[in-house]
């Protein structure tokens, strides 16, 4: 986060200032069957907070799984059920105050590729109501081990993004859904 990283596709640097997002309902699967799920439902991952990037869970040693499935974002039922604490506490800055709903992902920074004021890009992705549902569910192949490392390739994310069209998203809308889908494709398991 401190250093800008070099973006191959644009051959220029890109700075990330804020990168926070929710993941929820983490499940372990053996082929198509759910064999275990993480008890705590929602996790706020904040790249400035080391602890938030590590999720610990207890499952049986003998349990076999080959996939991990989770949502990126907060589901609609949680969105309409009033206030919650901890990771969902509105003091985390991941809740819209003028139009109820959780912000599933915040990604902010700057790069010359964005022709905006101070070359800034701001993505506040959210929305739980049809037709602008931005929560994404993804399933990743995972080899059985005590630690599964999931990485996010932001290089991929920005390479595939049309920077002239997508640079400032601050409310639930069509663009938020498109960018949320794009964001969900950048998760992968490190072998």
């Amino acid at each position, binding site marked *: 986060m401190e250093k800008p990283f070099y973006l191959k596709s644009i051959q220029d640097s890109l700075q990330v200032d804020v990168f926070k997002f929710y993941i929820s309902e983490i499940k372990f699967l053996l082929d198509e069957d759910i064999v275990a799920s993480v008890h705590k439902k929602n996790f706020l991952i904040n790249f400035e907070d080391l602890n938030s990037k590590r999720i610990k869970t207890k499952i049986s040693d003998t349990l076999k799984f080959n996939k991990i499935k989770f949502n990126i974002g907060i589901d609609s039922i949680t969105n309409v*059920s009033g206030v919650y604490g901890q990771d*969902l*506490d509105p003091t985390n800055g991941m809740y819209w*105050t*003028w139009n*109820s*709903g959780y912000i599933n992902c915040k990604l902010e920074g700057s790069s010359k590729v964005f022709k905006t004021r101070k070359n800034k890009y701001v993505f506040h992705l959210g929305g739980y109501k049809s037709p602008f549902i931005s929560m994404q569910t993804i399933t990743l192949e995972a080899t059985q081990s005590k630690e599964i490392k999931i990485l996010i390739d932001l290089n991929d994310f920005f390479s595939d993004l049309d920077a002239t069209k997508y640079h400032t998203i601050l409310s639930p809308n069509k663009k938020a859904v498109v960018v949320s889908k794009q964001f969900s494709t950048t998760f992968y398991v490190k072998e």
Partner: protein
Amino acid sequence: MINELKVIIIFIITFCCVGFSYLSSDVFEYPSYFPKPIYDLVNKPLSKQKIELGKKIFYDPLLSADNSISCASCHSSYNAFAHTDHDLSHGINDQIGTRNAPPLFNLAWQSSFMWDGAINHLDFQSLAPISSPMEMGSNIKSVVNKLNQHHYYPKLFYEAFKDSVITGEHVLLALSQFQITLLSVNSKYDAIRQGVDTFSEQEKKGYHLFLKHCNSCHKEPLFFENKYENNGLKVDTLFNDFGRWNITKVSNDSLKFKIPSLRNLSYTKPYMHDGRFNSLNEVLNHYSNEVVLNNNLSPSLKEGISLSAENKVDLIAFLLTLNDQKFTLDKKHKNPNIYQIHQ
């Protein structure tokens, strides 16, 4: 063994009685002809400590950036928690907003909040004025920090939530608890429903006119619905406020606003989302003569409402039976910070 069993049964029964008598006594007693509340009181039961705490926060200007404005600044208990005589409400630094502050009562039956329904739950309602630069100009994180450093709030939060570390969740829950107790159920209309009073001849005529022309949207006994309608108001080109459309961006929602309650109209003037009408006469003149026809006008208004001068007087006589003076004078809703010695 038999003795032990008896003890257990007695214990449980006593517990139930206590729980029941507390909830149904002075805190949240509503008439039998009311529907079931929408707010989840089973999973978020009312507690005396939480209600009192919520009341203190409601009346505390520390919620605003410069400690000048509290919730009560625009929601005065004497006016059924509306902002009487202000068409548009004002916030910090004397800024004027774009809408009329709605009254606060019977909120446990409301499923969305704000004139455009932007807020989907009572718990989250307070976030909007706290964060709006036109209103309190602060944010929940800053409010929580102020409360945590305060000399008596951590103690009160401990008493209410068994946690002296104040969180955003607990601040918002406390505010919900107090606001749920703002029940307006003691109007003349309610006394009539309960068989202890009767309409005058004029009020009765007005009631029949109400049932014919108004009840489809302002449904008794709550006199509102959790719906949005376009009631044919001319667009104020200064604000271009398209109401519900601002939230949904669905063209059919253009110029629709939340259907407000008709209870306590004497205390909550001016009327409409932008406070454009100062009297009930003006409101009825609008509905009978000035409705602007457009595509998504409320179906109930498409045929037009025809009211004679006499009809209007009768209808207003009925509407005044929905005033609940007991509610506006109720001491238990008043500012506790004036009387209470800081602990």
